[in-house]
């Protein structure tokens, strides 16, 4: 049992919020950008400090907490996601072109960063649900400003919110394995699939990319927060059949999106479908209840987020100068930005698991694990990756090759933009050269998830009728109403298991440390 030495997580979330409030009073866009950079950098620093403490398992003083109970947690699942999210925001701000500063709302961006970090670190299910819904607001607002209507994006997000709330309510107020509970978990899964853009509820994704800014769209989809919430809320309690259904839908969507990426007329839309295909591959792997496959899924999640973020940010950098790029012609930008072309290619290849990049081992594990579960699934995943590889190079060729593009403005990338994309590329290459550390941590997370799922399902199957009430929702172990006799079993099931291998341990509530058998 450890506690962080400082309120790193609270600082990481609070800093962008405070800066957002400050920016509303600033008129100079360059100053706004500087403040945003500082806030994002500070947030990333705090997150990294928290992760370093957890990694090295330092013992510390009392946990700093609001109102006597800290709502935030770092565990094996979110320890790479938190810094990844903070990094995405930092490099997005860093790579924003000077001429576009006036069209970007930095305060909205910082608020969305706070919401995302809080979502990834929140401990309780209802808190997570609330944050997921609130996290839609900044992007929806921007979408509304452009379109003056909700559009498919708005309708889908409304359905997502309704299903999320309804599903969680049903799960918590019904007996385990009852019809209501199954309906509830199905609604939860359905909500999170809508959020992840599963066919046929995927139309909001291209619409978002079409009308919102590319930066906002990237930040909204790249962290794959729907998948995160699926792992927290639905995965521990979902029946195997539901997981298989999710997998089938995900694979179908991935195939569909991979094919759609190859017929788009705009680079931005091609990227959008490419991302959709990748994210559905991650979802497809979640059906596996074996550690190896789930490890591959979690590794692929990181590599796809990094790769697609870099790919998308590079595209954003180029579109900031040239406008939307057509896939019907060759833009000839290589002569102007050769280094950006190389980085574009590396990040794109990382997302498809090219050897030498961070995605290679994850892709191998994902395929190997999938074939163990279902050979058909494994073969389909390989074919989808092949199609995605085609799309990556197609986008590259259409953007960078072709006759030299005449231009009256300087199309070369700025140092800040190059630094941003180079930082991502460095992580991608280093991750490819030294994958053991992150694969080991993902394996620990996968084992934890499977163990958690198994404990909950065993506890649920032992519970008798006549439940009197539910445990306080202080964790993600949703056990439903329980009898007094089953309380001990449920408490054991709801206690976050502790990893004895030196990886991550949950932050306990100070008041409950005597009740939980954590160590």
């Amino acid at each position, binding site marked *: 049992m450890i506690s962080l030495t400082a309120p790193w997580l609270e600082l990481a979330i609070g800093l962008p919020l405070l800066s957002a409030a400050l920016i509303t009073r600033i008129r100079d866009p360059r100053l706004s950008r500087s403040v945003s950079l500082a806030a994002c950098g500070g947030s990333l620093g705090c997150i990294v400090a928290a992760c370093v403490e957890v990694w090295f398992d330092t013992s510390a003083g009392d946990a700093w907490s609001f109102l006597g109970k800290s709502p935030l947690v770092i565990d094996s699942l979110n320890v790479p996601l938190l810094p990844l999210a903070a990094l995405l925001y930092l490099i997005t701000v860093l790579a*924003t072109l000077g001429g*576009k500063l006036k*069209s970007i709302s930095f305060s909205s961006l910082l608020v969305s960063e706070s919401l995302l970090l809080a979502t990834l670190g929140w401990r309780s299910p209802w808190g997570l649900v609330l944050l997921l819904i609130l996290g839609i607001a900044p992007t929806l607002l921007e979408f509304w400003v*452009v379109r003056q*209507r909700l*559009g*498919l994006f708005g309708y889908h997000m409304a359905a997502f919110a309704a299903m999320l709330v309804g599903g969680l309510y049903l799960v918590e107020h019904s007996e385990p394995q009852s019809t209501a509970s199954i309906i509830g978990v199905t609604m939860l899964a359905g909500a999170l699939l809508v959020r992840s853009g599963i066919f046929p509820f995927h*139309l909001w994704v*291209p*619409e978002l990319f*079409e009308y919102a*800014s*590319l930066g*906002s769209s990237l930040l909204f989809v790249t962290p794959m927060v729907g998948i995160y919430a699926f792992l927290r809320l639905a995965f521990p309690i979902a029946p195997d059949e539901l997981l298989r259904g999710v997998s089938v839908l995900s694979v179908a969507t991935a195939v*569909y999106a991979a*094919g*759609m990426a*190859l*017929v788009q007329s*705009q680079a931005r839309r091609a990227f959008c479908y490419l991302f959709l295909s990748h994210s559905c591959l991650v979802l497809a792997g979640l059906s596996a209840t074996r550690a*190896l496959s789930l*490890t591959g899924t979690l590794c692929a999640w990181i590599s796809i987020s990094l790769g697609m973020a870099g790919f998308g940010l590079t595209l*954003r950098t180029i*579109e*900031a100068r040239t*406008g*939307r790029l057509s896939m019907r012609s*060759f833009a*000839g930008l*290589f002569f102007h930005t*050769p*280094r950006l072309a190389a980085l574009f290619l590396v990040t794109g*290849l990382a997302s498809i698991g090219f*050897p*030498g990049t961070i995605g290679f*081992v994850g892709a*191998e594990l994902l*395929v*190997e694990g999938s*074939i163990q579960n279902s*050979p058909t699934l*494994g*073969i389909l995943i*390989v*074919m989808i990756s*092949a*199609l995605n*590889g*085609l799309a990556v*190079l197609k986008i590259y*060729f259409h953007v*960078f*090759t*072709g006759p*030299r593009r005449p231009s009256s403005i300087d199309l070369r990338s700025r140092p800040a933009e190059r630094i941003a994309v180079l930082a991502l590329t460095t992580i991608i290459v280093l991750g490819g050269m030294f*994958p*053991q550390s992150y*694969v*080991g941590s993902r394996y620990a997370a996968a*084992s934890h998830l499977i163990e958690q799922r198994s404990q909950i399902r065993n506890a649920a199957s032992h519970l008798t009728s006549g439940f009197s009430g539910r445990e306080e929702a202080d964790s993600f172990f949703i056990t439903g109403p329980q009898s007094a006799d089953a309380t001990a079993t449920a408490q054991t099931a709801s206690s976050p298991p502790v990893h004895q291998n030196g990886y991550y341990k949950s932050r306990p509530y100070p008041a409950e440390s005597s009740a939980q058998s954590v160590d």
Partner: protein
Amino acid sequence: MTVGVLFNLLGGGVLLAPLCLFIVIGFMMLAGMPLAEWAITRITQAAVFCGLLCSVAILVLMLATGRREVLVDFGDLVTIPQEHFHFQLRFMFDRLSVPFVVLTYVLVGTIGAFASRYLHRESGFGRFFLLYAMFLLGMIVATASGTIETLFFGWELVGLSSALLVAFFHERSAPVINGQRIWSIYRVADAAFLIAAVMLHHTLGTGSFSNLAGSGPWPAGTTVLNPRDSLLIGSLLLLAAAGKSGLVPFSGWLPRAMEGPTPSSAVFYGALSVHLGAFLLLRMSPLLDQSMILSGMVVALGLATATLASLAARVQFDVKSNLAFASLTQVGIITAEIGLGLRYIPLIHIIGHACLRTLQLLRAPNVLQDYQSIENAIGTRLPQQEEILLRRLPKHAAIRIYRLAFERGYLDDLIDRYVVRPFLGLFGWFEKLERTTIGSLDDRPPQDRATTPRTEERT
């Protein structure tokens, strides 16, 4: 220093030389400090020389000690002991890989020397040598690999560098389109390879070739797989080899690859890359020995390729395409030899063919001048004889065969008609359907949104 340590050092040298070359050139370009032509040339020479020296030293040492197989382990890239999963970085030097490694260094070194002059003051000089270094790294890793995962590692690097080099002259659209086409075929081959690799790993518990072949170094090993598994995995690997080597029905990519610079055409498509499929079949020869059906498929594929390529070579009107199909003819014959159970003969065939074809392709830009020199020397035109086959056939049959050869077996057309166009047509229809659906919620028709830029572009 023991012999084992010496082998490890030399093996490391063989692998590190191209890796360092790739890293140095790539890093300097990314850092915005591209090296000058002379620097790139010198570094390339040094890397190739070191690698060649180490590989020849390994060969000499193996002959001196009588060892037929040397395994060099660099540990595990990734290991998950609880799941018995290991991604080993193991390399194997045996009678198959050592000749290939030496051949690779010799030919790539020759090409490097040629290219340093051929591409002098070409704007893409640095880019060429970066891709060339990637190709060298991929070939060495693939040919010296001791596990199927490492072979896949090199396989992918070779594929990417090949596609990008075909699209080297990217100011024109034809090389880019051809590069995209080649990449598409490579991705199909890579998918088949990956599935085979994972199935092999899953069946055997390891991807090591030593375990695959059981006891005995190449070519004496006997697989531990049963005939059914051998057929299944072997078929996938055959598909991968067909894509990489341009066997039927993927032969169409080889002449397209001639869009690239002559040095890359020579080394990739005449000499090394095109033989990588045959190398894979030789490496997986224990599987062929286990399954007669698989061996039959290999022979049939090889003969079909050789026949078609031989016909196509006769009707080409540019020298590089002619040489491409001539090369493919030999690759088909080599493949048939492998299917027939021969092991050393195909290997010798590959080495000889690679050297000859490299020479021919490097001389290709001079072929007209060469012909003129010969004709000036003999004082008359070179005689041209009608093909014996065509003389004996009825005219309509000859025209049909000519047409078949000219259209390169209609393979590209068949792939386009039955695979590419239906695929693109189907998803094009989905795209229209989506735009209509989204458009029903908008006040503008769907096609306007596709082409009308945003009034205020938000990034």
